[in-house]
């Protein structure tokens, strides 16, 4: 559901969850807060990298739950670029020079790499030094060839039949050169690329790919065939299509921590409502569903299971469509956003099971990321201040404020609030906005849509709620999403000043300056009341407490980021 590569994966969560309708929010009222205090997940908020750690004993089986059937194995192809598949292959493929760790930072993958550093900014040059012991499980060393293969298949130029999920970054590379027996790789960029740490992962074995035809043919072969190769702690030894993937330790694993589990199983459960019963019945030992009150309260009742709520990278937001002539008026937009009470929304929905959730105040950075800056509070939006909203409207010449609102030209103000059908959280948000905007005299009709994509690209909406997913690589994504001319700028907000700042942020090799540019651009957009960030969605991980070293990783890598460390608690 979450894309592994896209900076903002447009959340297909709503689109794809044909059956995953589940009541969001609600609760017994006894919810004690973000995490069971007796559990070893308790300190995950403060120590995201080390909570629930412990010594393992040899042996045991852990079954982890994923939610989609596997349709392909080449994570870099558009077809198979899916969060769930990524999780399965976290322990099989080298995750690249950097791993997205739970602190939401790209962290050097010290098993695979000795170092990876930017040695020059003009032209931008990165030198990667690969661990001399790093090899695939057939003994072939992991080297520059694997980097070159990755570059050529993903740049959109060298392989005409490849279908990469994204060419971003790869299409800016000038050369990839191997030296030192292929263990040192030098990458030179044509134009600067801020998010270079996100490149070259996950990696596939070039020497095996080369046995299966040219770039295009091998690319397809990698997608169609279940890997028997491995450059990670585990190797796939069993696959029942649509049901499960079984992995056992890779005897040739070169990393520091050897896996202690006898078997690691990924079980596929496509209907989220069926995950908790399976956990309760010990058919799976750990689940990672979209959190809601019922799931959490049920999990609380299961003996021997602990859970944690984390801060996710998925965030809900309300978008206004500026193509609607009424919405083109900034004052009206500001009045709408000011009337909406985000605290009330949270307390009626996600706040009922996760009291830690607060309104989100930035469009690019999450509060748990470096660079987060509050750009919303100063605008007064999302506060539920009806009086202020009314005075905005009256000042702008609107009539019927509080009864039946009419624009200065006399047109009645009424809107649809669109939500992905089956997504209860968004449906309920629209229902709340309907009630709140009545105070201004605006008639809002909650409208279910079958296809989020069609609705967004055709622009057939007035107000719409959906979500974006961030990865730690922010800048190029912000450029794609908010630029005036971008195809993903669905509501058609345009501002040349913001465009210039976005462009600079995406191509600046000075990180601090890039952050500042992006936040300046964001402030301009926030003042104009185009997209109102609502809240960051919590992530929810539940596991039997005899499993140690498993913890949430809210990035696109997922909790299996450290799968080699998972094991049964030594007693």
């Amino acid at each position: 559901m979450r894309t592994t590569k896209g900076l903002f994966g447009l959340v297909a969560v709503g689109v794809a969850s044909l059956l995953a309708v589940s009541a969001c929010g609600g609760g017994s009222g006894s919810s004690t807060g973000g995490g069971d205090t007796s559990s070893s997940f308790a300190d995950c908020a403060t120590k995201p990298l080390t909570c629930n750690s412990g010594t393992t004993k040899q042996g045991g089986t852990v079954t982890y739950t994923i939610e989609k059937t596997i349709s392909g194995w080449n994570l870099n192809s558009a077809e198979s670029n899916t969060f769930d598949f990524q999780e399965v292959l976290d322990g099989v493929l080298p995750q690249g020079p950097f791993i997205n760790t739970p602190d939401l930072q790209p962290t050097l993958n010290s098993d695979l790499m000795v170092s990876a550093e930017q040695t020059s900014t003009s032209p931008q040059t990165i030198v990667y030094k690969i661990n001399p012991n790093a090899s695939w499980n057939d003994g072939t060393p992991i080297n520059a060839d694997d980097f070159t293969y990755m570059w050529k298949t993903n740049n959109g130029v060298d392989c005409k039949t490849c279908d990469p999920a994204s060419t971003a970054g790869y299409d800016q590379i000038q050369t990839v050169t191997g030296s030192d027996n292929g263990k040192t790789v030098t990458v030179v960029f044509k134009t600067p690329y801020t998010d270079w740490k996100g490149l070259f992962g996950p990696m596939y074995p070039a020497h095996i790919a080369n046995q299966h035809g040219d770039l295009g043919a091998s690319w397809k072969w990698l997608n169609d065939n279940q890997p028997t190769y491995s450059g990670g702690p585990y190797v796939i030894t069993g696959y029942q299509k649509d049901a499960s993937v079984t992995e056992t330790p890779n005897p040739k694993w070169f990393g520091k921590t050897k896996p202690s589990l006898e078997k690691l199983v990924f079980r596929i459960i496509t209907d989220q409502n069926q995950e908790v019963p399976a956990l309760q019945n010990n058919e799976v030992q750990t689940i990672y569903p979209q959190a809601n009150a019922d799931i959490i309260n049920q999990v609380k009742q299961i003996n021997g299971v602990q859970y944690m709520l984390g801060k996710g990278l998925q965030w809900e937001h309300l978008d206004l469509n500026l193509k609607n002539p009424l919405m083109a008026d900034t004052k009206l937009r500001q009045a709408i956003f000011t009337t909406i009470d985000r605290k009330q929304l949270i307390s009626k929905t996600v706040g009922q099971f996760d009291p830690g959730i607060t309104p989100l105040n930035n469009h690019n950075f999450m509060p748990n990321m470096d660079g987060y800056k509050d750009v919303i509070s100063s605008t007064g939006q999302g506060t539920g201040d009806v009086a202020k909203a009314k005075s905005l409207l009256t000042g702008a010449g609107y009539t019927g404020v509080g009864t039946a609102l009419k624009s200065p030209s006399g047109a009645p103000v009424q809107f649809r609030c669109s939500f992905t059908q089956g997504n209860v959280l968004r449906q309920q948000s629209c229902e709340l906005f309907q009630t709140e905007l009545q105070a201004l005299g605006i008639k809002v009709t909650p409208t279910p849509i079958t296809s989020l994509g069609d609705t967004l690209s055709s622009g057939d909406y007035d107000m719409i709620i959906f979500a974006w997913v961030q990865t730690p690589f922010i800048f190029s994504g912000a450029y794609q999403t908010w630029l005036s001319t971008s195809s993903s700028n669905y509501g058609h907000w345009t501002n040349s000043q913001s465009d210039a700042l976005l462009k600079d942020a995406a191509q600046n090799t000075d990180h601090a300056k890039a952050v500042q540019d992006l936040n300046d651009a964001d402030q301009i957009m926030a003042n104009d009341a185009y997209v109102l960030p609502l809240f960051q969605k919590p992530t929810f991980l539940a596991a039997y407490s005899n499993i140690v070293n498993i913890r949430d990783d809210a990035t696109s890598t997922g909790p299996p980021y450290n799968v080699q460390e998972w094991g049964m608690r030594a007693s």
Partner: protein
Amino acid sequence: MLAYTIRRVLISVPVLLGSTILVFIMVKLSGDPLESIKLRNPPPPPQTIKLEEHRLGLDQSWPLQYWNWLKGLVLHGNFGAAVQPSDNIGSEIGSHLWVTMRLVFFSVLIALILAIITGVLSAVKQYSALDYTTTFFGFLFLSMPVFWFAVLLKSWGIWYNQNVSANTFYTIGDKSVVLENDTTWGHITDVAGHMVLPTIVLGLAGYAGWTRFTRASMLEVLNSDHVRLARAKGLRSRKVLVRHALRNALIPLTTVTALDIAALLGGAILTETVFQWQGMGALFVQSLRDKDAHLMMGWLLVSATIVILFNLIADLLYGVLDPRIRHA
């Protein structure tokens, strides 16, 4: 009879073709299967989209797409490209069909046995407490939403497991991935433990209908002239019951059971979703979700063929069991 069979089969060919056209249009109208890929951000390069469109034949007109699909099917037995690239629709349907048919077979078997026993008893002991009880429960099962009951049954199963501290019942899939007790007996109990709950759910609606039916046709036969005659001739009542009444009452039941196959396949969609079985129902849900026209047409062809086959069997069985009916 052979001529009749051949005629029936020939008649069903245009019906099958008609239904694939119907479904093809419906799926095409429901949207773009590549939407989720197109919506990624950053968007995939245009080349990626073109390749996908070409692979799925979306770059052609609708009639041509359908014609190519039909041609591929008739000439090469190829069901066309699936939206999920690694899927071969033919073999997918094969493996999923096996899972569903196993579920349907056991459900029907158990439901039929129970339906006949309770139906006969309640006809013979008409207006007894037993009759009223089976009648009431029959109607209750008929009136319950399938998945509502499935959710309830699942929570009872888990409750039972926890009270006896053993994994007797399983709630997902048709077998365990890792088996602790890796013996033949272990395999049997594992598979059985996975089957019990979904079988009950799927069988229940069928049972309710069939036991009502058995009761009604049993009553009819018991009151018919030839049974009265047999009784009048002084035959023992058990012999009358088995040789005359039951046999005649069961003839229409075979027909009804065979005709219910379409409803059972529909019920399997719900049952398989709740219990996460990878059968035809799961495949159908996938085709809806992916907006996969080829997959849904393949699914439909196979399901419809099964239904037609069972209808034919019902007709032929009727002829075999009831000598008065002969198909010309």
